[in-house]
């Protein structure tokens, strides 16, 4: 059994609202090639197993895993798909390497959201067909319900949620991988169109296309491949009740559970003290606040206050979503968690360009699979 596992290569492409010049396969190849070059591996010779994350209805293909191997160098090799977020994919590669049977494993996630012409209706098909779908509601209502109860129980405000948008879109200006950077005021966010009150349209991440590939390796391989390994300290994931009828509307219990699992592996008792930088789900602005509390970085009701105070700005106590988050980089469907983890890897390597944060040693990435799910994952990395 291999105990220690590291990310030894990353590659990405896209991060634009549309990518009409490339097919999904060509886009993924570009990201994969960069990751393999970064890791210094040949996928045909060196990579033992491949994990992809995808969902059929996002691709417009049943049994989409059929179309995953060629562009990642996995043809006639050990490849499988996880219908989960990219952080589930990383967790899977982590487990595969820890078995001792695999030394190098690649993980791929992508979004061609621009190719989906009816995304709201596809998302609605994830609702319970008997209890919920007959009401014919746009799935954003689930986020509206959740946000309202979250604000109610934690005494948080719409203004605090808007502050997340302001911060993340501002951060995104410095990120070449972020198409949705902007310099907004809280007022700008709050006066935007309403989606599902109290949730406004400008608090919701727009979609983008992109592909991200990461290469993971066992300790022995890692040491021969790279002098800047990014080690996995902890990997956790969890689900809560999937139905709308039995869930906790205020809390991201799945994130609490996933964090507990990851912290236990990493030996972290005080996350605020231990973690230098965090990238969390902000596909809706309130989710960032909810996540920070679920991660135990602050107490319930404090995340909004800290955000307004600037504590989560890039130049402050705990930089959160320096990349711009999904609000800045776009909602990348199954690749969201990989985008969060990508920023942590770049920061821990000191390769984050003008947005580089000084003295970062431990970073955390967290993801959520979007409405209507209660599925989340947490990854803790160190350099």
């Amino acid at each position: 059994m291999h105990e220690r596992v590291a990310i030894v290569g990353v590659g990405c492409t896209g991060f634009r609202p549309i990518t009409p010049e490339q097919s999904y396969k060509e886009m993924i190849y570009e990201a994969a090639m960069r990751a393999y070059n970064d890791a210094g591996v040949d996928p045909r010779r060196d990579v033992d197993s491949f994990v992809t994350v995808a969902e059929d209805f996002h691709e417009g293909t049943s049994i989409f895993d059929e179309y995953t191997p060629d562009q990642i160098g996995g043809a006639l090799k050990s490849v499988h798909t996880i219908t989960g977020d990219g952080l589930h994919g990383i967790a899977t590669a982590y487990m595969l390497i820890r078995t001792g049977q695999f030394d190098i494993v690649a993980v791929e996630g992508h979004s061609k959201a621009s190719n989906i012409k009816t995304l709201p209706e596809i998302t609605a098909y994830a609702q319970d067909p008997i209890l919920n779908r007959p009401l014919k509601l746009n799935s954003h209502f689930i986020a509206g319900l959740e946000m309202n109860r979250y604000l109610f129980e934690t005494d948080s405000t719409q203004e605090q949620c808007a502050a997340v948008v302001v911060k993340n879109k501002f951060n995104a200006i410095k990120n070449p991988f972020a198409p949705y950077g902007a310099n907004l005021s809280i007022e700008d966010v709050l006066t935007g169109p309403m989606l599902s009150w109290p949730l406004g349209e400008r608090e919701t991440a727009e979609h983008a296309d992109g592909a991200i590939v990461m290469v993971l390796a066992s300790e022995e391989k890692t040491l021969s491949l790279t002098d800047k390994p990014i080690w996995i300290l902890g990997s956790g994931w969890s689900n809560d009740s999937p139905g709308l009828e039995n869930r906790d509307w205020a809390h991201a219990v799945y994130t609490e559970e996933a964090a507990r699992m990851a912290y236990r592996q990493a030996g972290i008792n005080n996350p605020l003290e231990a973690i230098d930088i965090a990238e969390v789900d902000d596909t809706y602005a309130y989710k960032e606040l909810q996540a920070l509390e679920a991660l135990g970085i602050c107490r319930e009701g404090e995340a909004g206050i800290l955000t307004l105070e600037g504590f989560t700005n890039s130049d402050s106590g705990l930089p959160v979503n320096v990349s711009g988050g999904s609000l800045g980089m776009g909602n990348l469907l199954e690749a969201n968690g990989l985008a969060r983890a990508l920023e942590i890897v770049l920061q821990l390597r000191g390769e984050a360009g003008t947005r580089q944060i000084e003295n970062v040693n431990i970073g955390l990435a967290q993801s959520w699979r979007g409405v209507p799910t209660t599925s989340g994952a947490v990854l803790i990395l160190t350099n």
Partner: protein
Amino acid sequence: MGMRKVAVVGAGMTKFVRRALETPKELTWEAAHMALGSCEMTMDDIEAVCFGTAPDAFDGVHLNGEYVSDGAGAWRKPYMRSYVGGGTGVFVPIQGWYHVASGLFDVVMVVAEEKMSSFYPHAQAAFLTIFDHTTERPLKPNLLWIFALEMNRYMTTYGISKADIAQVAVQHKRNAADHPCALLGDADITIQDVLNSEVLAWPVQRLDVSPVSDGAVAVILAAEHIAKRITDKPVWIEGVGWHLDTSYWTNRDLAYPRYVEYAARMAYDMAGIKEPRKEINIAEPYDPFDYKALHHLEGLQLADRGKAPELYSDGTAARTGNMPVCPSGGLLGVGNPIAAAGLMKIAELFWQLRGEAGARQVPGQPRRGLAQAWGDLMQVGTVVIMGR
């Protein structure tokens, strides 16, 4: 440090039926509930859950793994769904294996479910969209085509007759007559019945095909120290393998499943098996169509290329033969709720190797068995080897 040993310690399944009353969640729960009961465990003992189901189109829910999760026992637990098309049923126990073998978990529940009848009016129509959206789907293909194209290529390459192949359907459906969950068990079926059945897509006829079905299966996996505490008859997962070939299926020779061979070699290596024909006592190759069992036996190196029909004609594959093939009754007899059908083979090996398979029991106290599934565009092989 050596690899962590992983055992199957419990199993449960629903009947395989044409149209189930139960929702996908309920079918999943029924299998999971039974698996827990079989080894006297509770959800407190389960540390993580792995789930398998084939395309979302069948259950008819986007993000179907999330939707079904409560039935699988995923509440506030680490939970993932793995996916390799038709190969999923034998992949999901591999997913469970790496959960435990990684050292992150000691006890994992593995569940597979499919409710094909939710795709209405015809489950087969769901397969149009497995073809390439731009270069193939405009031809309006259906699933029968790929099987028919592959079967024809296989028959022509090796000079195999329809009657040679029909033996498989006959033996599996007869075996299934002894399976209490079977949808199409038939103790009296003959080769003539198969050869006289309706031609769907020549060379594929009605009785060459496994039935569209609903059902679920669950097994519980445990690390060595737990397994030995729970049962004095653990069944070990000795080897696992999976390989996915290129999606450009019209650029390959369909006569031989290389991906199955590669998956099998990976599993044999892990299990330390040098001579599979001597060391495998029971084989449960994937048999959604009768010729597929033959095709897979060859890929698994359990028969020479083009020679698998001989295992049936000389009695080797019979339940009382030297290497019984699909003593469960297989997909052809028990039914084919895609992912659940693959996991059914794992449950069958569990029961067979423990000597608990009742009327289906293979004589001679078999020591080792192999289960295999296949899927996608004639593209993926998944293999699990289990032993006492």
